[in-house]
């Protein structure tokens, strides 16, 4: 599987995701600077977490219009898998690769802790190694993770099974108390219509090695390799 991570000024999870991917692929994962305008042939493109452009104007707004994102969009349109984590999710919504927007957290606080998530969609290259309804624990670390979209968009996402992850309690119950940031319908991650683009606020790459205290994130990368290894 040929993978690359897009690096913006202010990205700070780019190396973590590189390590997680290389651990699963055994192949080097390329790092691509945002000023590049073309991409090599890839199976997976990752838009990493961080604070691209210092979150100026809106989180992800500047990065969404950087030169490389035109190429990312073109590849996504061809069906190449694109994964946006945290700030990467914000960038993908601002770039209109995914619908909706990540607003400031309900309680106006930066939240940095592990959360339980229910896996809702398993028919994707990202989530095939998880069971539907499985509860996994990933860290979140964000100020703007409050997913919002108009009612029609939310209905479409729900009807088409495009909610990939939802915030839940340890038993898998999707409750208001288990919603850390105010996201509509406890949405933590969504897919595009073609299901080759996933955006999510939680960080699978931060729990992909026992040294980090858990490996709940690892099946995502193993599954991607399984699905995309040429």
């Amino acid at each position, binding site marked *: 599987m040929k993978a690359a991570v897009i690096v913006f000024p202010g990205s700070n999870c780019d190396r973590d995701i590189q390590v997680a991917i290389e651990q699963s692929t055994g192949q080097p994962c390329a790092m691509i600077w945002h000023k590049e305008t073309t991409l090599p042939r890839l199976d997976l493109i990752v838009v990493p977490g961080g604070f691209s452009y210092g979150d100026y*104007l809106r989180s992800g707004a500047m990065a969404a219009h950087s030169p490389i994102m035109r190429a990312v969009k073109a590849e996504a349109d061809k069906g190449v898998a694109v994964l946006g984590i945290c700030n990467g999710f914000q960038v993908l919504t*601002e770039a209109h690769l995914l619908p909706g*927007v990540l607003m400031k957290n309900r309680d106006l606080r930066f939240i940095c802790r592990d959360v339980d998530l229910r896996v809702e969609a398993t028919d994707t290259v990202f989530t095939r190694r998880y069971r539907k309804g499985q509860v996994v624990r990933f860290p979140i670390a964000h100020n703007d993770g409050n997913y919002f979209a108009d009612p029609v968009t939310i209905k479409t996402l729900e009807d088409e099974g495009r909610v990939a992850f939802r915030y839940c309690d340890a038993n898998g119950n999707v409750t208001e108390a288990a919603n850390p940031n105010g996201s509509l319908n406890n949405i933590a991650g969504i897919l595009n219509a073609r299901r080759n683009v996933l955006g999510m606020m939680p960080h699978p790459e931060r729990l992909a090695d026992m040294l980090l205290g858990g490996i709940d994130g690892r099946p995502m990368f193993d599954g991607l390799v399984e699905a995309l290894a040429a």
Partner: protein
Amino acid sequence: MKAKVHVMFKEGVLDPQGKAVSHALAALGFKGVNEVRQGKYIELDLDEKNPDKARQSAEAMCKQLLANTVIETYAIEITE
């Protein structure tokens, strides 16, 4: 021309910052503040001399970058 752009949350979109400011004003003893909504104000200094064209150009900037029309509205004022 100058373009003065106000970007605000749409009606119905929760504005937690505005709410927090409203609570803080109440805590300071200011009475009769029904609601606070917080937005952004952006000034653009444009080469364009024609006000209509300046507005069109600012409008395109709002749509593409300055506002996220999923949650925000914008208002443009063109001045000399």
